[in-house]
């Protein structure tokens, strides 16, 4: 990482950390929502932008993380329930779904991942012990090293630490030897096999990593709103993450966070004026894809001449 990047990142973290000191409750909630969706979108960008696997079923891991957190936090409101168990469950889910899905590519991969995530929706929607269509409500926030995250300040700090860790983790991965293998697979899967890479193993590992981080995002979302419902599994959850990644700029990681911010801010601003915010969002999206196919970050880089 260049010095400029380190300084920029640190400044951004400082601003986000200090935000509750000068902003009201609603803006802080918006910011937290952006951060959580940002992690979720970044975990999808690892698959889409780096490994070239466009998943339309990423909501499966978001939902698994959310449900496991909800079930576990009621029993024992600690970090094991808030992070470890949801991450593990999402990893296992990604391992199973990935095992079948990575065998196909393109549209078939999209359909298969979509089908798996919709299965979770159907099951949770019917399951009485999971609150059926209402989901699980009244989920307590964890106690973090003795600090109760029910306090807004503690939750903000706890969330920020996890966001920073997730961002650094994903940044590190895409620049690691493994990350370069993913780029090679994205570029030319056949040649990767011909030079000796067992491509499916790498794709599965990427899928599990992306799914695990998505599970953490789902768990954080559940802690943020205090509930989780079958909607978390719905295809629109995957679709929104996909939009965030594309709006921000596929294959940039940072762009996904930016895309999440743009999406959520637009949604909150426009929806306070009109019920038809989806229409405005749709038009914005069409405009972006037509005139800035590299996403917001792509457009910025082209303008300022910054390149990764």
């Amino acid at each position, binding site marked *: 990482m260049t010095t400029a990047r380190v300084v920029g990142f640190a400044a951004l973290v400082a601003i986000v950390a200090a935000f509750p000191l000068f902003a009201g409750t609603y803006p802080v909630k918006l910011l937290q929502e952006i951060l959580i969706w940002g992690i979720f979108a970044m975990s999808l960008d690892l698959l889409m932008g780096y490994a070239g696997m466009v998943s339309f079923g990423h909501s499966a891991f978001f939902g698994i993380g959310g449900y496991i957190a909800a079930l576990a936090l009621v029993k024992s409101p600690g970090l094991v329930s808030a992070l470890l168990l949801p991450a593990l469950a999402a990893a296992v889910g990604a391992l199973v779904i990935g095992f079948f899905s990575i065998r196909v590519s393109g549209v078939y991969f999209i359909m298969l991942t979509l089908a798996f995530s919709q299965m979770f929706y159907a099951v949770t929607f019917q399951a009485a012990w999971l609150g059926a269509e209402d989901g699980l409500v009244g989920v307590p926030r964890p106690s973090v090293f003795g600090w109760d995250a029910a306090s807004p300040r503690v939750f903000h700090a706890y969330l920020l630490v996890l966001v920073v860790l997730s961002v650094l983790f994903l940044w590190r991965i895409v620049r690691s*030897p493994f*990350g370069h*293998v993913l*780029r*090679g697979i994205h570029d030319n899967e056949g040649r*990767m*096999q*011909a*030079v*000796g890479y067992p491509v499916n193993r790498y794709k599965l590992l990427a899928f599990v990593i992306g799914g695990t981080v998505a599970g953490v995002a789902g768990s954080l979302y559940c802690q943020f709103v205090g509930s989780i419902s079958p909607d978390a599994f719905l295809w629109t959850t995957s679709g929104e993450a996909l939009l965030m990644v594309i709006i921000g700029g596929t294959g940039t990681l940072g762009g996904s966070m930016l895309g999440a911010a743009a999406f959520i801010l637009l949604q909150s601003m426009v929806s306070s004026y009109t019920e038809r915010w989806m229409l405005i969002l749709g038009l914005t999206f069409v405009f972006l894809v037509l005139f800035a196919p590299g996403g917001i970050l792509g457009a910025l880089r082209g303008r300022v001449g910054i390149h990764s």
Partner: protein
Amino acid sequence: MSASAPLLVIGGLTRRFGALSALNGVSLAVAPWERRAIIGPNGAGKTTLFNVITGQLRPSGGSILFDGEQVEGLKPHALARRGMGRSFQRNNLFFKLTVLENLRLAAAAGGRGSYNLLGGIERMRAALERARAAAEAVGLSARLGEVAGTLSYGEQRQLEVGVVLATAPKLMLLDEPTAGMSPEETARMTRMLEGLPRDVTLLIIEHDMDVVGSLADRVTVLHYGEVLTEGTFDEVKRDPRVYDVYLGSA
């Protein structure tokens, strides 16, 4: 294995596509360090033979012994790890990555370092060194930072061979390395191939008889999926049957 044992032994290899037999009982043996050319008219089954040897296609029958091991039916990556490296007739590169990244990916394929999630790429010293050596060998040292897709066709052809070299194979299978090249580029490629280390066994499909003549120790002629004849370049050249299949006897 003893020095005289062949590196590659193919026995009665067949490959059918529906009713068509692209390979119809091909047998050949390549000694270690040998440079063998496979020639034959279009549709003779040369590329199919490569595809079956390197695992892109499964054989319909027959056996492949490589480095003393039965390998038919293994996946391409498994064969590459055992020391088979192949280039392609049509440029098959990582077009969005730089020359160095192309070569480094190939050089790192054999090790386990590629599962490293958190380490820096710059720590893969051995792979980087092998990548640079391969670039040097194919004459692309000055182009390491260029994106492969922006190279000239001839340079991409050189990189195609460089990627194979970077995997440090025991057996190199080159599928028409000079395809589509100008006479000057072909001459340069030939010099480059002649300069390859002798401990790499070479199996090369080639249409340019000058290249075959100056490079190959032995030549195998394929025709309609069968071995028509085999021998030194001069022996093969004098064989009237070879003359017939190339010019057509009818």
